[in-house]
């Protein structure tokens, strides 16, 4: 049976030791009242909620799916009640400002909450999924009237927002979209067009739904510079139904409890958010946190995969192992986690999951520092670093989430391929995260072309300095000296590769695009190396505690078995000199 236990011990390690976040909170006026105990209690109760309320609906929601009938969507049994419990518990408003009715807690704690929600029920999590982003967007770009009308209801969970971007011909390229908006006499707009892939575009969790719709004004320039953002409620302030209709829901590989809707707008009433033609800029305030959250989906899937594989491998007995742990008697068949191949897989699951947790929470913590830091220079630095890490977290974590779900399924053998253990559901649910919110290929281009080469490598150099400083700090400890040396070497090689790509781009502008995917994976591995050097440094000298002993073992495993993939990625970046032929038209 699928099970979930919130990884509270490791979460506390990352928050309290790896990030030492409580000390930073003391320096941020907004979080000065937050201490270690309170943060730990928030995370523990969030875990209790996720495990107790959301986890039991995961498999049933997948099997039941959503039902569509004449424009209405019925979500799986238990989803509306779970949403009500989520809202009543105040979890929806964790990181919203207190002035709007939120709890004013850091993004870091929200990241922990989201990881657990994604581990326990990704499909359900899609409904409140963009609420926080919509809150940020409305707060930054809404007129005082719109903020007055909707902000508090988004924070309280009374209204759920959706994002309506994609059209049949406009996927990654939103510049191709055709939906139109015409100004009306009263200052509002009439929106007309068809949208697809709108998650939660229609559902039975809330009375009202607030659609954030990208559309063109009559005088709009073509392409992505001619797109404006509109706020279009399902139900208008006077109670009338707006001219928005759900035409159907998709039948999908995974997240089947999430209603992925086709929506048609027929002269629907709405209001402009932000400047005309600057819709993408208005949406941008949502981007960093939204992409981080998708990355956390990858982390959540990896954690669920790891826990379930670890438990199964401890119980399932097959064949006699070559070696057994000391003191374990011979048996006709050993638990499969004695077998080296399974140990490799399980250690990879554990090491990558825990490493990603450190990096993902770090990114969330940087967003807090960028917003709430006292020193403007440090705020700017945190903002730039978060922007650099965001595409990495989104693409690397979601790729690992899917890959690790597959590894976990392999541990289950045939039982993984059938529905009973629900590990196949993790595999199916995790796959979408590589696609939506900017496909992983778009992320790789964003990382290399915009975030690394775009500023002449400045942000990357800053990041590598942080990595090297960690290597320096760890270099004197006997347990981690070797790890520190390796981290330093790979920082150098990564810097050289980036410089090489920058130089080559002048002659061959397509070159960085050919190398972008491998560059992203290389940076992912070097960032994990950093995460494990710091974890090992914190664990050094404490091996008598099994938790820290495990950290040292995982670090050693990472440097021996996983980091060598970086050589492979460096070789592929080198290989990208070779032009790619075009395919027959």
């Amino acid at each position, binding site marked *: *049976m699928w099970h979930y236990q919130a990884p509270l011990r490791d979460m506390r390690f990352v928050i309290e030791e790896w990030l030492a976040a409580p000390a930073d909170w003391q320096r941020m006026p907004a979080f000065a009242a937050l201490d270690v105990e309170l943060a730990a209690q928030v995370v523990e109760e969030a875990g209790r909620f996720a495990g107790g309320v959301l986890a*039991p609906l995961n498999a049933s929601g997948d099997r039941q799916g959503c039902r569509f009938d004449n424009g209405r969507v019925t979500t799986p049994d238990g989803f509306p009640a779970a949403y009500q419990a989520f809202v009543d518990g105040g979890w929806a408003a964790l990181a919203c400002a207190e002035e709007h009715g939120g709890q004013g807690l850091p993004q870091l704690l929200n990241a922990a909450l989201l990881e657990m929600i994604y581990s326990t029920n990704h499909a359900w999590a899609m409904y409140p999924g963009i609420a926080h982003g919509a809150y940020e967007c409305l707060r930054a770009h809404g007129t005082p009237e719109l903020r007055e009308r909707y902000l508090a209801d988004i924070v309280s969970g009374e209204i759920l927002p959706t994002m309506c971007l994609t059209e049949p011909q406009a996927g990654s390229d939103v510049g191709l979209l055709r939906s139109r908006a015409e100004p009306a006499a009263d200052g509002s707009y009439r929106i007309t067009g068809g949208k697809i892939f709108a998650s939660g575009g229609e559902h039975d969790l809330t009375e009202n739904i607030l659609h954030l719709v990208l559309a063109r004004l009559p005088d709009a320039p073509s392409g992505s510079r001619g797109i404006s953002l509109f706020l279009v409620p399902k139900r208008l302030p006077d109670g009338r139904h707006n001219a928005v209709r759900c035409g159907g829901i998709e039948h999908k590989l995974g997240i089947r409890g999430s209603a992925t809707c086709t929506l048609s707008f027929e002269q629907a009433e709405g209001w402009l958010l932000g400047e005309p033609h600057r819709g993408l800029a208005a949406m941008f305030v949502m981007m960093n946190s939204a992409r981080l959250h998708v990355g956390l989906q990858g982390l959540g899937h990896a954690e669920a995969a790891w826990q379930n594989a670890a438990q199964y491998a401890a*119980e*399932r007995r097959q064949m006699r192992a070559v070696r057994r742990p000391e003191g374990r008697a011979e048996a006709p068949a050993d638990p499969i986690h004695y077998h080296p191949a399974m140990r490799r897989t399980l250690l990879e699951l554990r090491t990558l999951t825990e490493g990603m947790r450190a990096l993902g929470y770090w990114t969330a913590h940087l967003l807090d520092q960028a917003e709430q830091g006292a020193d403007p220079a440090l705020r700017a630095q945190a903002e730039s670093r978060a922007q650099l890490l965001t595409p990495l977290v989104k693409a690397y974590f979601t790729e690992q989430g899917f890959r690790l779900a597959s590894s976990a399924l392999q541990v289950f053998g045939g*039982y993984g391929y059938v529905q*009973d253990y629900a590990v196949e559901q993790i595999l199916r649910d995790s796959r979408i995260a590589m696609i939506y919110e900017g496909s992983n290929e778009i992320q790789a281009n964003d990382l290399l072309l915009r975030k690394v080469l775009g500023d002449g490598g400045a942000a990357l150099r800053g990041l590598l300095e942080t990595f090297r400083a960690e290597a320096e700090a760890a270099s004197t400890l006997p347990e981690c000296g070797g790890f520190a040396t390796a981290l330093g070497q790979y920082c150098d090689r990564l810097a050289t590769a980036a410089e090489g790509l920058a130089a080559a781009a002048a002659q061959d502008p397509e070159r960085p695009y050919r190398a972008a995917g491998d560059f992203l994976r290389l940076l992912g591995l070097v960032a994990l190396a950093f995460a494990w050097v710091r974890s090992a440094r914190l664990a050094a000298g404490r091996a008598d505690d099994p938790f820290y002993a495990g950290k040292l073992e995982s670090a050693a495993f990472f440097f021996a078995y996983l980091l060598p993939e970086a050589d492979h990625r460096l070789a592929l970046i080198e290989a990208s000199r070779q032009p790619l032929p075009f395919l027959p038209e």
Partner: protein
Amino acid sequence: MAILVIAEHDNAVLAAATLNTVTAARAIGGDIHVLVAGSGCAAVAESAAKIAGVAKVLVADDAACAHLLAENVAPLIAGLAKGYSHVLAPASTNGKNYLPRVAALLDVEQISEIVAVESADTFKRPIYAGNAIATVQSSAPIKVISVRATAFDAAAGEGGSASIEALAGAGEAGKSSFVGEELAKSDRPELTSARVVISGGRGLQSGENFGLLYALADKLGAAVGASRAAVDAGFAPNDMQVGQTGKIVAPDLYIAVGISGAIQHLAGMKDSKVIVAINKDAEAPIFQVADYGLVADLFEVLPELERAL
């Protein structure tokens, strides 16, 4: 050294758990006296006097003892206890109710739910819902002990000829009063004392399907239980839950139907003498504790089993 055993009864009939408790007392060794506290309980005293190995039966026949209210019977037992080395009661809901009150009145610690007697002062008892067995030694002048009846064989209910001695009643403490009782009307035995228990899990798929278990239970004279998963899913009420946080059962025969065998459930039934598991998942952990496992679709097998019995 003499041992006082508190009888379990309903004023009419001596409950079997008393016989198991007498066996535990015999393992400690010494004269065994049985206290029957109740109201109009002469027939119970007669039965107690016939238990093999009992030397004396004390009867406190008093309206105040009718329902074994702890406020009334604890002072009575504590008063008697001073003449004994050990006071034993079955770990029934009655025993669990009044006995700690007796111990505190005597200013001694109680030893709860022993499953084995090592010596007159050393006993084994399960802790952590039976996931560990502690061996504890008591230096208290009077050892107050509750006994898990299922862990001891029953003493012979016939053959003894103890004297019966009437005691003055306890009197009303005036703290509590009995209002009413609602005993399960079912002809099925009570879950924790049933000889046969049939439990259903999530595999039953609905509350209605528990009807299949009831039909079979009536055939076997069995009680019906449920796993936590089945209770959580709303298939069965809370009081049917067998497991770490529910009822602990140890019947002669336990039939687990559509139960995977989560650790919490195993904690509540693994001391059963014979365990049968019926589950279509051959890997379900329940098979690791089952004496007889049948890998099959329960919806096919249950009617067949009912016909075969």
